[in-house]
């Protein structure tokens, strides 16, 4: 019973292993990069545009609007990082329809790497926005006694991000594998569809949580932005 794509070894030389995680991650990177490059070769600004360009525009403007809704004022600064997080995790889950593919986010290494990226990005954007002193001062809000708790909350948020994504992806593939040995036909298809849905939801959750953490760091902890916007009467 395979617990993660780490255990699918395709090629080995000494202690250098090419396992499923690395292979599928590079496959996804290739797909995203080459696909985007091909679609954006001849961009058109008239009403007549290719359907792929339309698709990309829907995705990009959708992500930009979501980032703005969370409370980040200049979404163009953050859309590179947050958009990539969302697209990578979403595509990793969507490609499960390809036979023989295991999502690389089903391995704790991948999700830990993504969570570490968020851990580094939050102080980076916070210092960029507020300066080093301003950002470090936010750890002492509201009193200096909260300093260890603020630091612990940063680390536990990262851990929670990694384990949440890993657990969701791993459980999806594992339930599918177990069901395939019991009832090989109808039920695994329903579970596979459910796995696709949870994959997309987890991709959205990962990027929205990263956006909320960045918003909290760039806005300062005193005036934490509300995720709900006032309703225009």
């Amino acid at each position, binding site marked *: 019973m395979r617990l993660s794509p780490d255990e699918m070894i395709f090629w080995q030389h000494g202690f250098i292993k090419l396992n499923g995680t690395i292979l599928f991650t590079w496959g996804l990177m290739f797909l995203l990069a080459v696909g985007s490059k091909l679609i954006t070769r001849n961009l058109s600004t008239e009403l007549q545009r290719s359907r792929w360009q339309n698709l990309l525009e829907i995705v990009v403007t959708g992500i930009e609007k979501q980032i703005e809704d969370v409370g980040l004022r200049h979404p163009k600064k953050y859309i590179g990082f947050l958009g990539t997080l969302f697209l990578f995790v979403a595509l990793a889950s969507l490609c499960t329809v390809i036979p023989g593919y295991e999502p690389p986010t089903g391995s704790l290494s991948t999700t830990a790497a993504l969570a570490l990226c968020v851990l580094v990005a939050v102080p980076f954007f916070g210092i960029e926005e507020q300066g080093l002193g301003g950002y470090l001062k936010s750890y002492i809000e509201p009193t200096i006694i909260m300093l260890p708790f603020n630091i612990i909350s940063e680390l536990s948020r990262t851990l929670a991000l990694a*384990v949440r994504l890993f657990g969701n992806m791993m459980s999806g593939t594992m339930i599918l594998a177990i069901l395939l040995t019991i009832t090989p036909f109808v039920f695994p298809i329903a579970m596979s569809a459910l796995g696709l849905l949870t994959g997309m939801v987890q991709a959205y959750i990962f990027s929205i949580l990263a956006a909320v953490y960045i918003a909290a760091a760039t806005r300062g902890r005193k005036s934490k932005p509300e995720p709900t916007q006032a309703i225009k009467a």
Partner: protein
Amino acid sequence: MDSMTLIAIASIVTAGLTIALGSIGPALGEGRAVATALSSLAQQPDAATTITRTLFVGLAMIESIAIYCFVVSMILIFANPFWNHIIAQAAGK
């Protein structure tokens, strides 16, 4: 009862109990969250997108607790360090 049997029994029972007890809390919490979200949607249908988005974020945070319990259960069944150690010892003998 030798230590190998004892480790096996403890691992299996704990794995079952972990996921069983660990799913109760999150399930109840998610039920309450969705119920409150539905009633606030009925009160203010204009804020539907905001409420839905906040609901999903909240559900994911609650779900993580169940996921932690699931991961512990899986580790106990499939990647149990005590079992691996005792098997290695028995094989080495």
